[in-house]
């Protein structure tokens, strides 16, 4: 089986970076399904959520949660999906995915958009939906904050771009969930990152896992 070696990172540096990238819902809105219509006047029952519905669902779902956790950056709205369950086909409902990194709890709140309220809430640990855009950025920040991995990433960027890396915004990022049967990533929110550099090359990050719950980087050994 794979082993995981934990590398403690300078906690202070990471805390600063995380605070900078954490946005409260409403401050620009959560990443969302790709709505293709300019705010439709009146969507049909089976249409994707409109940008306005996504925004409203996010606001209602976060209002329903412990505000202090959101404010402290402990909980975060990942994204909003349309609820297309078969039980009530006609209703416009949204599912807001909220993750609490303090307790490693995922909460999915179902928002009835017509009634403007949360009609269902399901919470649990051990479930990891795909990373959000913000989480991909935060994972890259954790790697950059790692003394040696960060140095390696900056050097690779400098070689590829011919100029220094300013921030994660210079990188193309794609995150996937990493889970392990044992160890931190059995419970924590762990993200594996693909990093594309401006010259079209990718860093080999296959052994690097950003643990968003512990705010650490794990190096996989195999």
């Amino acid at each position, binding site marked *: 089986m794979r082993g995981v070696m934990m590398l403690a990172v300078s906690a202070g540096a990471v805390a600063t970076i995380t605070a900078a990238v954490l946005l409260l819902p409403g401050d620009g809105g959560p990443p969302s399904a790709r709505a293709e219509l300019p705010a439709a006047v009146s969507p049909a029952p089976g*249409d994707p959520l409109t940008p306005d519905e996504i925004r409203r669902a996010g606001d209602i779902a976060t209002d329903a949660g412990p505000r202090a956790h959101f404010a402290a950056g402990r909980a975060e709205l990942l994204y909003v999906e349309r609820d297309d369950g078969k039980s009530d086909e006609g209703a416009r409902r949204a599912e807001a995915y909220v993750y609490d990194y303090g307790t490693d709890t995922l909460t999915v709140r179902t928002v009835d958009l017509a009634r403007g309220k949360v009609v269902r809430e399901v919470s649990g640990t051990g479930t990891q939906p795909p990373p959000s855009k913000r989480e991909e950025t935060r994972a890259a920040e954790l790697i950059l904050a790692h003394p040696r991995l960060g140095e390696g990433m900056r050097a690779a960027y400098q070689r590829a771009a011919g100029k220094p890396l300013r921030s994660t915004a210079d990188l193309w990022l794609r995150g996937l969930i990493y889970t392990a049967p044992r160890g931190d990533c059995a419970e924590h929110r762990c993200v594996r990152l693909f990093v594309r550099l401006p010259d079209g090359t990718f860093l080999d990050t296959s052994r*690097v896992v950003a643990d968003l719950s512990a705010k650490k980087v794990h190096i996989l050994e195999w």
Partner: protein
Amino acid sequence: MFLRIALAAFVIAAAHATPAPRATLAAASGARPAAPAGNAAPAGSVRTAPTGGAAACGSPYLVDQALPNGARWRMCWEMRTIEGLTLNHVVYTPRGGAPQNVLRSAALAQIHVPYDSGEPRYHDLGSLGESAIALTAADCPGGERRGTYVCVTTRARGHAHLKDGFGDEEARRSRQGEELVVLSGYQVGWYAYVAEWVFGDDGSITPRLGATGSLAGTVTTPGHGWPIGVGRRHFEESHSHNVFWRLDFDVDAATRDAVEQYDFAGTGTKRRFMVRTRFATETRAVNRRMRWWRVLDPRALNADRHPISWEIDNSDSAEYRGPADEAFTRADLYVTQYHACERLATQNPLPRCRNSVDRYVSGERLTDPVVWVNVDFHHVARDEDADPMPVHWQGFRVLPRDVTAKNPSP
């Protein structure tokens, strides 16, 4: 020491380049045929109250395409954050027949990518909706881009039928077929995936996934890879793409659907016997030669009083079987009772729900079955896979079986 290994692992992978646009399909251009006339010759459906009523969605999400032979497909698409392109309320209308509900929902449910040395092992979903590639006109030849990420087009599919007239030109029957394609692309790391849903004018459905973009550039030992650089220095690591699709069939309506498995007993003998197994409860099934499955509503009959059904053929899989903690790899088809929270084949995103498709199979009685199809491709790289890597496809077929009492094509 491990840290040094990780730093050394920051190796630059092969240069990435944009895949070349696909060739234009001449047959897909030109005006769309009109919808089949209501008084066309009946194709054999006896339904008095047609299913597939009003469309559940509006523009630009509604796809309603009549094909030249009179077949018609209607569906709603949605680019979901997690699953990416999802098709809902798929309705097939054979020429001259009544609309038939086929699928309530269909989407990719996972792309599991284990490398041959044992690591890494990726689950490529991934917020597919966030990974969608903006399509250009060249990505959608002869068709229409719906927004930025979805292409709806039609193209030729070769002979629909050929029957010689034996010298009598009037009696000769030959027709070229056409198909509707709904597609999107996703950038997942160095790989680009093209996800196609193909709806034939013969009523067939072909979900398929193409992998293109770039190779990972992962160097391995000769036992786990193939030399793709000059000489025998760079062995690119072999890996599998184990693709899962989730198909929620609602034949006629959401309830009463049943799933049957067909086998043909008799090995090394001249005679073969059909063996039908109806799944009363949730089931996992593996591929066998000649084995196929069908989803039917026993009470929805065609004009010959045969149940309308949809056959699933999955004979094109490399059938990867992983370790015990990847039990989801150990079957090729799963049939589960519908639960709204069961959406992905692995890393299911909803809390208080089981985590993977093998665990959805828990002995529940089937009244509203969901079919999960697993098709695996083992990619052993070759020199030709240099950028841009040629697309390699994997998929399966869904065929109408007794939806009409005869071939509805003119």
